């Protein structure tokens, strides 16, 4: 009997029935269920984005009515934020890798893990029902008074969907925190944890502390909309800015729910791609935790022109600049980790390097909009749209896809076609910049967001942006095609095709049901890569092709 057999055998072959997948308690299978779910919602949100960019090719609103356009960007936002970006890395790669990386057999609460997935699916059903019923037009932020008093679209269906999916987030967060505290294998001390695990810990804290406030806020929308209880309507004794305080208390940290796991993930990719230890491990840990905590202090920068007191705005502005310090530590340390590295340009490394560049551009423009005086002019322009897409799409999605490629051999036991993957990664980088860099210029020129028609002088940049979106769509569809192809035709992967450090590479590909034959013992720090020498460089293998 092999060690794999002793640990339950290949998890992919542990049951072939639909029931064995839908009722599984195995964190690896649940991660795959989530992957299927978020891919579906990514495609749904992508279709809405394509319609928006198609409409904006010409200055006139000639493809859809203003109401339909409002519904398209709302659907795009709701789906991409809550059903793709928030669960993307934690629920898929996080679920799959966390127990493997700390030498555990599973997460602390396997049943709760499955329940989280079904809450996610249930929330998704409400959102799809909302779309089929005619959609919602409030924007993904559900701002009052429009959402509570004036919108005659299906606000409540969307709100209930997001409310439910929030609980999925909370339960995943609780599961991760308890898992990291209680299930680390022998020798896996806190400061031997891979940075991806630290990032999951930070994001789990944010999920648990922030998401209940979102649930409460959405419940308050329901109270005012359905029962006329005066919470946000001044005529009924409410405060119109209160909604935005509550909403952004969750939704700004939610940005870090989306980007923190990406930061941890990219740290794994860069160290493996450069065969170097991470530069300044402790500072990377403290900056991850710093972003998690200080990220809660900055929500008011979304409200500089919403009627918020100017004194509060100044405080929020200063606190927002602090986030830039933690982010800069990470960018400098990733760059320093490459120094004298034996760098490979595998597809996943191209994604990781792309992430660093795009995140830096998104982060720097974040400093622009953190400054009150600049933000007053830039609020609600395409500058803001571009800024957050550089962080969330250029950052999180690039990292997610990099991670999917890096751990694909581990997850499926198959190699993906390297050349196609490199081509897709490069195309995605150019497509992304062509889509969103013109939007910075449009924003500076004063083009407002959320309009389906615009002044003719903005057309050239809009056409460029829509052309970039076409490239981006092709680049996103390519991995879907070749990764599915590789499931059947890809070359068999060994346990550690990238010669990467980390416990997950010490078990078979795909891992057995219980992850390890014997619980591994950790005797050193993470990223235990050898110092590069001429000999190592000479023997470095090329990434295996199909």
């Amino acid at each position, binding site marked *: 009997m092999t060690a794999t057999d002793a640990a339950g055998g290949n998890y992919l072959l542990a049951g072939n029935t639909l029931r064995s997948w839908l009722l599984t308690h195995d964190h690896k299978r649940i991660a795959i269920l989530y992957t299927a779910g978020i891919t579906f919602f990514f495609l749904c949100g992508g279709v809405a984005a394509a319609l928006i960019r198609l409409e904006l090719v010409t200055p006139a609103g000639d493809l859809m009515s203003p109401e339909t356009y409002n519904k398209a960007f709302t659907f795009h936002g709701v789906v991409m934020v809550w059903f793709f970006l928030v669960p993307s890395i934690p629920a898929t790669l996080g679920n799959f890798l966390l127990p493997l990386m700390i030498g555990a057999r599973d997460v*602390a609460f396997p049943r709760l893990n499955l329940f989280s997935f079904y809450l996610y699916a249930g929330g998704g059903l409400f959102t799809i029902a909302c779309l089929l019923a005619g959609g919602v037009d409030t924007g993904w932020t559900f701002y009052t008074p429009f959402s509570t008093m004036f919108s005659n679209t299906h606000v409540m269906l969307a709100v209930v969907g997001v409310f439910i999916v929030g609980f999925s987030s909370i339960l995943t967060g609780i599961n991760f925190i*308890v898992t990291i505290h*209680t299930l680390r*294998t022998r020798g896996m001390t806190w400061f031997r944890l891979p940075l991806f695990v630290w990032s999951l810990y930070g994001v789990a804290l944010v999920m648990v*502390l922030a998401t209940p*406030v979102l649930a409460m806020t959405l419940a308050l929308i329901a109270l005012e909309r359905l029962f006329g209880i005066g919470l946000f309507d001044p005529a009924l004794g409410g405060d119109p800015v209160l909604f935005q305080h509550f909403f952004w208390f969750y939704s700004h940290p939610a940005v870090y729910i989306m980007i923190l796991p990406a930061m941890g993930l990219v740290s794994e990719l860069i160290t493996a791609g450069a065969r170097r230890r991470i530069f300044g491990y402790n500072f990377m840990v403290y900056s991850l935790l710093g972003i998690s905590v200080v990220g*809660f*202090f900055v929500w008011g920068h979304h409200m500089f022109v919403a009627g918020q*007191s100017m004194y509060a705005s100044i405080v929020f502005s200063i606190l927002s600049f602090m986030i830039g310090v933690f982010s800069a530590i990470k960018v400098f340390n990733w760059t320093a980790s490459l120094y004298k590295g034996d760098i490979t340009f595998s597809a996943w490394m191209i994604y990781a390097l792309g992430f660093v560049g795009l995140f830096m551009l998104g982060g720097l423009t974040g400093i622009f909009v953190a400054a009150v005086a600049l933000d007053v002019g830039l609020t609600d322009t395409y500058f803001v749209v571009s800024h957050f897409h550089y962080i969330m799409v250029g950052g999180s999605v690039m990292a997610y896809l990099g991670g999917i490629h890096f751990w694909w051999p581990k997850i499926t036991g198959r190699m993906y076609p390297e050349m196609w993957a490199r081509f897709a990664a490069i195309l995605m980088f150019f497509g992304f910049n062509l889509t969103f860099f013109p939007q910075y210029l449009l924003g500076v020129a004063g083009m407002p967001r959320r309009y389906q028609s615009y002044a003719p002088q903005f057309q050239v940049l809009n056409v460029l942006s829509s052309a970039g979106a076409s490239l981006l769509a092709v680049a996103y569809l390519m991995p879907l095609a070749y990764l599915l192809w590789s499931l059947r035709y890809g070359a068999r992967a060994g346990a550690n095709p990238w010669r990467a450090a980390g416990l997950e590479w010490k078990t078979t590909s795909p891992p057995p049901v219980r992850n390890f034959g014997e619980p591994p013992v950790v005797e050193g720090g993470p990223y235990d890569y050898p110092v590069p020498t001429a000999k190592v460089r000479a023997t470095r293998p090329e990434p295996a092709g199909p």
Partner: protein
Amino acid sequence: MNARTRQPRSHRSGPRPPSLASNLWALVALLALLGLTAGSAFIPMGAFNTVANVGIAVAKALIVMIIYMRLATDSPLLRMVAMAGFAWLALLVALGLADLLTRVPLLGS
């Protein structure tokens, strides 16, 4: 803690949970306090309405924390986690009030 001996802990290994009777009495007390809150709306006491309602709310929160969340009898770690939750809530209230209390009235309003 030695990683070798670390085991997941559950409530079952901690102090005895409150009995069904305690839980039901807590529920009755909460409903009675809810009635008081609603009733106080019909008694004009000026500023003391707010004081009374905040007092009732604190009493409700204490019942939930002591009986339902078992903060009085369970491990210090659980109390720390609960305190973190309250600290975060205080953060929301404090920075929210930082806006509300420093707003300058618009001209003419």
